[in-house]
């Protein structure tokens, strides 16, 4: 076989056969839609590992850095307003500082937790292979499909 076939012409030629087979229930309903949906999932599946996801989360949290109490200038457009701002600012800054320190302790705990998860994932060989993750997801999908058919849900 050297010459390419004219698939369009052949498909038109076999339209009757296809219709007969469909009428006989040879193909499961929704077959084409399932195949298209499967391809869309494959095409949209990011080749990203769980480790990539956690790495990004750690970077985002670390980049956020420690929180600080903002230094608000005691200015005002009202006469005497600046003095009021200074008095109020001195009153609330200690409370703000205490709150920020508490938030920073929480941020440190979150960072430590993420780094611990990152370390745990790094020790899983499969979690660093995008192709393997993709394959495992595919197996999951196929098992789910089989389960749906067995349960008569599809």
């Amino acid at each position, binding site marked *: 076989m050297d010459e390419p076939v004219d698939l369009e012409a*052949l*498909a038109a030629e076999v339209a009757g056969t296809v219709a007969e087979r469909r009428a006989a229930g040879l193909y499961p309903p929704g077959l084409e839609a399932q195949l298209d949906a499967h391809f869309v999932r494959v095409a949209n599946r990011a080749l990203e590992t769980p480790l990539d996801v956690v790495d990004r989360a750690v970077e985002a949290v670390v980049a956020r850095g420690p929180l600080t109490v903002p230094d608000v200038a005691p200015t005002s457009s009202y006469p005497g307003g600046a003095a009021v701002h200074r008095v109020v600012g001195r009153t609330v800054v200690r409370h703000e500082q205490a709150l920020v320190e508490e938030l920073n302790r929480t941020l440190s705990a979150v960072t430590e937790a993420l780094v611990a998860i990152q370390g745990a994932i790094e020790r899983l060989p499969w979690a660093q292979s995008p192709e393997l993750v993709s394959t495992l997801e595919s197996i999951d999908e196929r098992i789910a499909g089989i389960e749906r058919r067995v349960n008569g849900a599809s």
Partner: protein
Amino acid sequence: MSLDAVTEAHLARLPPGTVIAWFGDFVAAQRPQRLVQAVHVLSGWHVPGALVLMAGPALDPALARAVDRYTGELGLVGSWVAPGAAPALAAAFRRRADVIVVGPVPDRSPVELAVALEVALERARR
């Protein structure tokens, strides 16, 4: 230019009367995934063991990777998606093919295309 022995052996082991080869560009407009779907239907309902060899420029590398993964996920054992294949490999695909499809895959149902390929294989066997 010659193919290595492993490649030659792989192609030689493919069952006769089952090999569809496609040559085209890996771009959405040519719908290479539709041919993979058709070969999946062909293999599952009409010609057990049917498989597809694909070669052509990877103009859309993401699509080419997706078609490769999709072929694997559909369990088309022995199939070979080779975006950017060397001329020698493409020539080997052509020599081994029972049916050759070139360029855009018709925008038809995979079932229609599968039955069309079934007929093409039958005619090629005569």
